[in-house]
Every structure is written in structure tokens, then in C-alpha cells.
């Protein structure tokens, strides 16, 4: 973990309010894992808190990290204006990341939860079924996933793939696996948690919450855990430090 001024290698708009940025961060790259995140800091001094953004790709040879993020407010709007050659203040890599398991996997990404699944798809060696949930037929990153496994799509408006959510797609297409990995909105993760329990499938889900420090000190971004957590000594886990990836049955959503 380190905080540096990293050079922006490239910045591209790849969807409605969705941007893809590559940054040069050699030391971070050397230890980064899929499912980890970085904290980006605004230049605007009135915006104090870092914006946690998941790592989308890790290019070891280039010493570069890719983040794909949605412009959700003034902070991410600032990042989206950064051009190649400029610097971005970034800390990372943060959090635990996804464990790489053997066997057949279903990788599920919903909305802006899709990006971290790309590096995971690259690194998993077993058979991969990738389920992506979008609002409509603006399907960012979809083509890039096709290199790593069979891609199944669900759209809210039914304009592409299965109409409905990612679980509708899984059920419609009768997908089965030994392990499920998921990142996306909480209702989606909740449904996957229930699906994993009823089908007896091992599942790993990536959570998000408003953060402040990003390193586990401030206890802002906690989630409820089923068992008493060893560090906090209460039923709370720190998403930034103990997560963002948890065993589905470990947490209460």
C-alpha cells in the first residue's frame, strides 16, 4: 500500500458516464490482485475524501492499472477530465481481493460492479461463465469479457439478452458452477447470497459503502457480519480492510 502521484496513461469514455483510465503505478501493480481497489483523491481541496474505485485490469509488463468508473458526482467528474500525461493522486492497492478458486466459475457483474470482474476473468484458469447486468443495450466492457469465457447478458429494459436481472439470466440459461463471484448493487448481491445458499454454491461477493480513510482505521465503511469479527469484536467487518470481498454467508446485507 502506498500513496503516489501516478501518471495518467490514457482516458477514454466507454459508455454513458462510464470512463476507463489507465494509470502508471509500477509498485502497486506488482502486488495488486483482482477485486482490490484504489483510492483516488481530488485536486479540488474542498473535496477531502478519497473515491474508492475498483481495479479493472492489472498490466504487469506495462506497470499500469486500469480503472473503469462511473461519473457519480463532482469528484469523479474531475477525474474524467484528466488527460494522458497528467497526474492523479492515488493510494493502493487496498482491500483483500477475490480468492482464485479452481473449477467452474460464474462471474457476475452488475452495472458499475462489472469492471473488477474483468481482471478476475483474466486470472481465473477454470471454465468461466460471465453474467453481466446492464440497464440497457449500452454494454460497456462486454466485448472484452468475451475473450475469457461465455458471456451472458441481462438488461433491465430487455433491449439485449435476458430481460431482468443477472439471476434471471442465470436461471433462464441454466448456468451452474462450483464457485460464484459477484460485484454490483446490494439488492443484486442479496439475491445472489440467497441463490448461493439455496443451491449450495460457494460464493464471494464484493461490497461497497461510503468510506473515509480506506485503510481500516476510521470504521466508517462497515457491514454486518454473521459472526463476531475478530478485529472489531462486534458483528461488524470493515469493508475497506477485511473486504471488499466476503464469503456470501459471512455477511448480512
Amino acid at each position, binding site marked *: *500500500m*502506498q500513496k503516489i502521484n501516478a501518471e495518467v496513461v490514457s482516458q477514454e469514455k466507454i459508455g454513458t458516464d462510464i470512463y476507463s483510465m489507465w494509470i502508471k503505478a509500477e509498485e502497486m501493480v506488482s502486488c495488486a490482485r483482482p477485486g482490490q481497489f484504489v483510492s483516488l483523491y481530488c485536486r479540488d481541496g474542498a473535496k477531502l*475524501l478519497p473515491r474508492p474505485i475498483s481495479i479493472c485490469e492489472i498490466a504487469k509488463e506495462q506497470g499500469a492499472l486500469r480503472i473503469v468508473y462511473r461519473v457519480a458526482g463532482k469528484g469523479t467528474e474531475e477525474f474524467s477530465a484528466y488527460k494522458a500525461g497528467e497526474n492523479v493522486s492515488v493510494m493502493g492497492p487496498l482491500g483483500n481481493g477475490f480468492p482464485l478458486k479452481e473449477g467452474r466459475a460464474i462471474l457476475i457483474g452488475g452495472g458499475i460492479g462489472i469492471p473488477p470482474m474483468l481482471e478476475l476473468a483474466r486470472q481465473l484458469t477454470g471454465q468461466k461463465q460471465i453474467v453481466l447486468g446492464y440497464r440497457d443495450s449500452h454494454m460497456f466492457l462486454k466485448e472484452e469479457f468475451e475473450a475469457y469465457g461465455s458471456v451472458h447478458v441481462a438488461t433491465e429494459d430487455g433491449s439485449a439478452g435476458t430481460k431482468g436481472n443477472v439471476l434471471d439470466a442465470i436461471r433462464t440459461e441454466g448456468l451452474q458452477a462450483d464457485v460464484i463471484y459477484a460485484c454490483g448493487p446490494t439488492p443484486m448481491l442479496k439475491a445472489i447470497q440467497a441463490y448461493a445458499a439455496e443451491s449450495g454454491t460457494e460464493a464471494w461477493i464484493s461490497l461497497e459503502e461510503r468510506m*473515509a480513510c480506506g*485503510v481500516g*482505521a*476510521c470504521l466508517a465503511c*462497515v457491514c454486518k457480519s454473521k459472526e463476531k469479527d475478530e478485529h472489531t469484536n462486534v458483528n461488524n467487518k470493515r469493508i475497506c480492510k477485511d473486504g471488499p470481498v466476503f464469503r456470501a454467508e459471512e455477511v448480512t446485507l
Partner: protein
Amino acid sequence: MNTKVSLAGVLLKNPVMTASGTFGSGAEYGELVDLNRLGAVVTKGVANVPWPGNPTPRVAETAGGMLNAIGLQNPGIDLFCKRDIPFLKQFDTKIVVNVCGRTTEDYLEVVERLADEPVDLLEINISCPNVKEGGIAFGQDPKAVEAITRAVKAKAKQPVIMKLSPNVTDITVMAKAAEAGGADILSLINTLTGMKIDVRTRKFVLANKTGGLSGPAVKPVALRMVYQAAHAVSCPVIGMGGIATAEDAIEFLLAGASAVSVGTANFYNPYATVEIAEGIENYMRENGIEDVNELIGAVKE
């Protein structure tokens, strides 16, 4: 050049401390900063039993600041003594334990439990705005401030810092009440109670509705209150509230603080504490100041 300051006989290698709740017990930030460079580490508040804290969201950003309503989540004094104190003992820095409670008895239980621990100072949090019982309820009534201070002092083996709330009409009344109760040191300010509403969802951004405002936005208010408190009492005062740079820290020293705590700045600059300690030394060198104590209360009237 001397950078040491004394807080009720406890000698800090420099006047830079961490602010409670922003630094855990140092372990997380220890990966980024050398804890040996700090005058003291002030731990996150610890109670007699574990507290789960408030529902999330617990934090929100505001212009030049942030709101928090963590609700004093803590692992309880037993685990704290077993894990956090031994961790901090590895470093050459003073250990200040922030103590919280819902009742006077809660506070006293923690204070007594710490009597035989290698802790240098106790900071009694009577000013947390985010818990319904205890916390600020003790800190907004001068009689209650004096009473709890006296009760803690009767049991404490270490010098006692009373941490004051800025959510009062006249800070000097609270400062004097704490001193009358026997406080060895005062620290201020805790956070200012605030609120944020999301106009799209028409909901409060914090699950707790209100939270404590901190960060550079509160610094002028904090500086004014530290100045007033330092002139109202004869015991040392630790200044905090929006300190992010050495210049900020020196302002507080000039206003009368004997030491300073760095809080919210850690969240956006994890190196802030060490940079401030170095920055104070540079300022002393550049201005021919031999002893940092020359700066305390040295604002020209």
C-alpha cells in the same frame, strides 16, 4: 533545537499527536507512517464493553470537511488492552487512550482497568455528538463536566485530558468547569454537529441524520475556541480541528495550545502527521526559534 513539550509532566518528543477516532490504534497507519516520529498516538475511543456503533452510511463529505457518525464503535477495553496497547508499546511515542462511556460508571470502569497499563495519558471523551447516551450529554452542562472530571480524577492513575465539545455557547465555561473538577489537560475541539440532505432522494445522507463536522472547514472555529479556552484556564490545552499542515499547527500553538492533534487530514494525506512534525522543525529553523515552547501562546496581542 528543542521540540519537546510537556503535558502534565508527560514529555512528548514533539507537539504532534493524532486525533482520536481518525487513526485507530495506529496499526493501519503504521504501514504508511513511522509512528516513532509522533509526539503521541491518541487511540480511538474505548468503552468498558464492545460497542457496535451506528448504522451506515456513517460518513459524508461536505465542502472542505466531512461529517461522521461512527457512534464510537470499539472492541471494548479487554481486547484493547490485549492487542492495541502492546502494539503501541513497540514504538517510541506516548500512548493516550481515549475513553468513552454511556454512564459515569462506564467511564470509571475503563479508567480503573487502565490503571496498571503502560499508558501515558487518558483522554476522556465527554463530547461525542453521535451517541444518544453519555458522550456529549456530559459535555454540554458545566456541572456535569465538573462532576465527571472529579469522578475520573479520583480513580485515574494517569494524568487526565478532558476532551471538550464545541457545541456550547461559551467554551470558557466548560473549560473552567473541567479545570475545577481537577482536569490536568484540556483538549478541543471535538466535532461540530452537522447535517447533510441528498436533494435527489430527499433523505439524510447519514443514517444517524446528524454527524460531527471536521476538517479544514472547522479550523477557524476551533482556533478561536482553543484561544479562548487557553486563556480561561491555567492547565495545558491540546488544540485540534482541521489541522492539515504545519502552518495550521503553528497557528494553534500561537493561540495557546501546548500540543496539537491531527485528525481528518489523515484520511486524505496519511503522511500529514509526520509532515507537520517536520514542518514545525523547519519553521523553527527558519525563524531562529530554539524551543518550540516559545511558540505556545505567542500570538501578538
